[in-house]
């Protein structure tokens, strides 16, 4: 499992790699944390559950990032990891994500690396290789 940032002129792109759907979301939360505040270690963590549903994995990733950006903006909780997560198909063939996410509270004096406005759908396409899943997500900053 890994994530890596790729070049984009105006915004920030991240490529997520994992052998499971759940792993993609775990990597995404770590990448978002790095975009927000860098690699510094977080001491105090808070937990919050999130539930999302979408018709494709790509759209679920979009919704996941949107949800985390919304929480950051309103509660000033930034994501820093995933405690538990499951991605399953529900009866309508939609994908259902249930996760217990880890956050930390940012104070007015904490310097951010970047502020994320939201995820985009630009080039958002899941690729399945023999070994794993790969997906590129572009975030507007």
């Amino acid at each position, binding site marked *: 499992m890994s994530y890596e*940032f*790729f*070049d*984009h*002129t*105006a*915004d*920030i792109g991240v490529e997520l790699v994992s052998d499971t759907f759940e792993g993609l979301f775990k990597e995404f939360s770590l990448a978002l944390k790095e975009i927000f505040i*860098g690699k510094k270690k977080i001491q105090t963590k808070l937990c919050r559950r999130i539930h999302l549903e979408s*018709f*494709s994995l790509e*759209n679920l990733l*979009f*919704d996941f990032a*949107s949800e985390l*950006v*919304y929480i*950051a*903006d*309103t509660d*000033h909780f930034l994501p820093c990891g995933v405690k538990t997560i499951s991605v399953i198909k529900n009866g309508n063939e939609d994908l259902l994500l249930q996760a217990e996410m880890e956050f930390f509270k*940012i*104070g*007015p004096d*904490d*310097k*951010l*690396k*970047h*502020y994320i*406005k*939201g*995820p*985009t*759908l*630009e*080039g*958002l396409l899941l690729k399945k290789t023999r070994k794993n899943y790969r997906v590129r997500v*572009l975030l*507007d*900053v």
Partner: protein
Amino acid sequence: MSDLGLKAISENLWELEKKGDMKVPGRVYANKSILENLDHNVLLQLENVSSLPKIILYSVAMPDAHWGYGFPIGGVAAFPMGDGIISPGGIGFDINCGIRLLKTGIPSKDMSVKIQNLTDTIFQNVPLGLGQGAIYRPDKSEIKKVLLRGARFIAESGMGEENDVARCESGGCFQGADPEEISKRAVERGSSQLGSLGAGNHFIEIDSIGEIHDQQFASSAGLFPGEIVVLIHSGSRGLGHQITTEWIQVLEKERHKKNIFLKDRQLSYTEINSEKGQRYLRAMRAAGNFAFANRQLMTHRVRTIFKKLFKDSCNVELVFDCSHNIAMEEVWRGRKVLVHRKGATRANPTCKINYGGKLFPAPVIVPGSMGTGFTLFSPKEKCEDTFFSLPHGSGRLMSRKQAGKKFREKEVKKELMKKGIYVKNNTCEGVSEEAPDVYKGLEDIEETVTKAGLASKILNAKPMGNIKG
């Protein structure tokens, strides 16, 4: 033909010929230097925009065009109001992101306050980013008024002066906004950020006017060489971002249901006259009004700071406020069209603004990097060729990742200080990723638009202090 396969129309105008799914060709405004450095991704995005249904004549890339999402940043496209489409990807997350220019009446040679003190005071008093609060906390009824009336509501609430509204594009208020179209989540994000700068490329810059090219305009507007002026660049903050996110989700579901294939799903669209199209337009206009109100509040705060520091020796007046991320209903060659501008400024010489009792075409503010200042342009009739649009900046050349590797915050600030430009930043990357060399030269933008006959220069200004969000 250029190396990128573009056909020359004139010295500074190039055509991406129609191919594949393209309904119309693409047009690129670029001088030699801009063309040499043009990212091929801009052309891919231009091609995607040209493939949208009902697009009129051609999709346009301004000289500052660079790789964005959906439309290129610096992209323009028009669609018929009757049966055309609207795409949030042609507007962007930061609905009605825009820039305003304030004059102060203070000659830089007589500045009684050091630029560092002035910059620091603004930095300390204008909320910048996440968790730093806002100038104004509206209650439920006030936020509705903000969404409905934009800068007008703020000015009428005692936080504006006589010309503030008249010198905003669309009078600081987009008609046809509906606060009921704004979700609870968007209101929640926006209510705590009304009157705050935001991050990324948002900034407040203190400049000194340099050369004046249009003396008639400058005299009427009371602008003079050496005058201290202020730029404020910001948008609709989390409220606009939330609306865009929600509508992308809605239109994506619809696209999926109808099984429509799009080369770039960020260009999901709906018909303007559909129920969803009309609802998105009403929501977009309300977010646009939030952005006007946001910039008005920061103007009020900057004005208060100047009054406190300079007493009666200053008179902070709005020169103009331009939007550069919006779709607007306009008349073009006798047709009613919806012009999408994503990182492009409306530039219609028939839209007049009163300066000192005389009417002038609404000016266009084009900032360069934090090391170069800005140019004020006057649009010409030839702008009809760009659906009445001009650039919104000088445009990025380098990716954020490359810039982060190449430039260090401290060194960039030190180099700028040597040139007399003092920088205060909120986010660490706000300086390295926005370093002057990351951007195209403002002189190339000037050359392209003036030689293409789109606009003439009114004046240039040089930066002295810069606050990065």
